Each structure stands twice: as C-alpha cells, then as structure tokens.
C-alpha cells in the first residue's frame, strides 16, 4: 500500500478483543501528533470493522483496512 512507508507507529493488538482494540488504538493515537499515521494489527473481524468506524467517528482519517492473512487485518489511521 502506498502509505506503508509513512507509518509513524505500529500497534500489534493480536489476541485483543473489542472494545479494547479501539481503546488501545485510541490511547496510542492520543500521544501522537496531528497528521501522524498509526498502523494497528488485529486478528478478528469484529475489531477490523469496529476500530475503523470508531476512529472515523472521532474525526480521524482511516487510510486503509486490509486483510493480511486468514485472520489478521491491518488498519491504517491518520490522526486528525
């Protein structure tokens, strides 16, 4: 993906479930600067759906949601 090289922080949340995938993503983003990019790895479909939606509701930009393998997803978020 075009934004692979511009990720400022990666958060591996494999093994984590909703709502904590969003909670931890939000905490990571809070201490980043506006415009910086966070990559979040989750391993369940519910989080892959809920995290992007919640991030958008908070006003952040979701740059991509991509399935990596049979269970893992990456979610690329840009802080507003």
């Amino acid at each position, binding site marked *: 993906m075009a934004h692979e090289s511009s990720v400022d922080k990666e958060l591996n949340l494999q093994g984590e479930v909703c*709502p*904590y995938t*969003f*909670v*931890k993503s*939000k*905490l990571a983003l*809070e*201490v980043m600067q506006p415009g910086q990019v966070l990559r979040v790895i989750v391993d369940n479909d519910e989080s892959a759906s809920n995290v992007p939606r*919640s991030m958008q509701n*908070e006003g952040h930009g979701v740059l991509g949601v991509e399935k990596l393998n049979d269970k893992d997803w990456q979610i690329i978020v840009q802080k507003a």
Partner: protein
Amino acid sequence: MSTQQPSKLERLQAPITVLDFSEEEIRRYSRHIVLPEVGGIGQKRINRAAVLVVGAGGLGSPVALYLAAAGVGKIGIVDNDIVDTSNLQRQILHTTAAVGRKKVESARDTLLALNPNLEIVPLDLRLNASNIIDILSDYDVVAEGSDNFPTKFLVNDACVMTGTPLSMAGIFRFSGQILTVIPRQGPCYRCLIPQPPPPGAIPSCQEAGVLGAMAGAVGVMQATEILKLILGKGQVLNGRFLLFEALQMRFEPIEVKRNPECPVCSDSPTITELIDYEIACAVQPPTALPVT
C-alpha cells in the same frame, strides 16, 4: 521577576504527554477512555487529582463512591462520627457490619474494595478554623456534604481564601440543592446566604427527615460536577444554584451572580479570618406547661 503560581484549576489542566496505564487500568477505565470528552488524557487527569470529601454521610457516600470508581487518585474523607444504624437508610458507604466503627475507616475500606489503586486518606476529625487551611493544601477540589451550617460556611470561606473549587450541596426531606463555587469566578455560598441561619430557624437534624435516595440523587450530581471540573469539560453550576424537588421530579436552576458586597469573596471582604460557628442541632428546649 516573580511568576504567579497557577491556580488549582490550572494545575488540574496541566499537560499530559505520557499515557502509561496498566492492563487493569485500561480495562477498569475503558468506558471513560472511549468518551471523546475524556480519553486517556482525561483519565490521567482524574487519576492525578486529589479531592477532599467533607462528611462521610448521606452526600459524602455517593460522592466518594463515584469519585473512587472514576479513579480519582487521592480522596480525603473528613468525619469524626461513628456509624449508627440510623445512617444506613442513606449512607451507602457503610454496612450493618460497620455499625460502631469510625465512619472514615468504614469509608476507606469500602472505597479501597471498589478501587484498590487509590490513596484514601481518612481524617477522623472535625474541620475548624485551625486545621482546615493546612488540610486544603493537599487537595485540588472539595466536595462539601456536611449536615450543619457552621461546617458549610467554614468550608466555603476557606475554599474562597485558598482558591479551591468547591461543590456545595444539601438535602432535606424530598429536596436537594447544589452549587459549584469557583472562587472569585462566580458566586460563593455567602453570596446566596451571607450568614448562617440562627439556631432554631431550621428543624433539628433528627426531626426533619430525608428520603434516603435524595442523598444518592444529589451526591452523584456533586461527583459529576467535580469530574467535569477535573476534566475541564462542560458547564458546571458556577453561577447556577440548582434546586431539585423529587416529589414532582422538577429541576429548577436559579441564576446567581457574585455579590459585590459578599463578606468573603468580594474585592473588599469584611471576613478575612475563618470563623468557628457553634454547631447547634436546633433542638428546642422544653417549655414547661402547668398540668391542669
């Protein structure tokens, strides 16, 4: 060159750049963290705050419980009473097993069982003009929930003199009142009531009665106001005296302005030293009647 010390409210809003929550804290406070108005930064502000709860009784119980649940890092509890069976109708910090125990110790045990991450400071004493300023220096905000006017006036005056934000409340039968005081940024308690009412002007503590749930209804509002002050979010009851009448479920906010002649918070205060008013339970002396 001298620099002005930040106010207590300004210190509550000091920047936070590190969010180092434990796994347990992330789970415990997750419902706060997801709120746009709170987030991790707001939760850290709550964890860093220190609140003094005056009275471990009807109002103090829900205030302390909800502040502890929220994670307020340091909670001081002031009360020199012991738990009595008659308290249990509304003072939900205490249990039947605690009857006879010091209220502040019973309170501490309940609060730590709810949230062991906190520092609970039991203050088994009555506030007076000699001790209150020193005690207030350790706290950012005060929740006043005592059952007597002398304490209410003492706490108000000391908070104005030290610049300590204050939530004042009272309950009576089916009514409640609540006001938030931000010293010199809005009215204080004396702007509404310049002097304590004379003994006998109000029914005695035991005679008046109160619906137990009123303590919960109003005390939780105090906790909400204090959390909003800590977070710096929303509009607090600074300049609004909120009356709650439960029989009709009616809320009435009354706009109150800072009194330019207020004896304690005006620009030329006439009260510049703290006053220990005598506490009277307003029990009328018996009147002898000849037997006919």
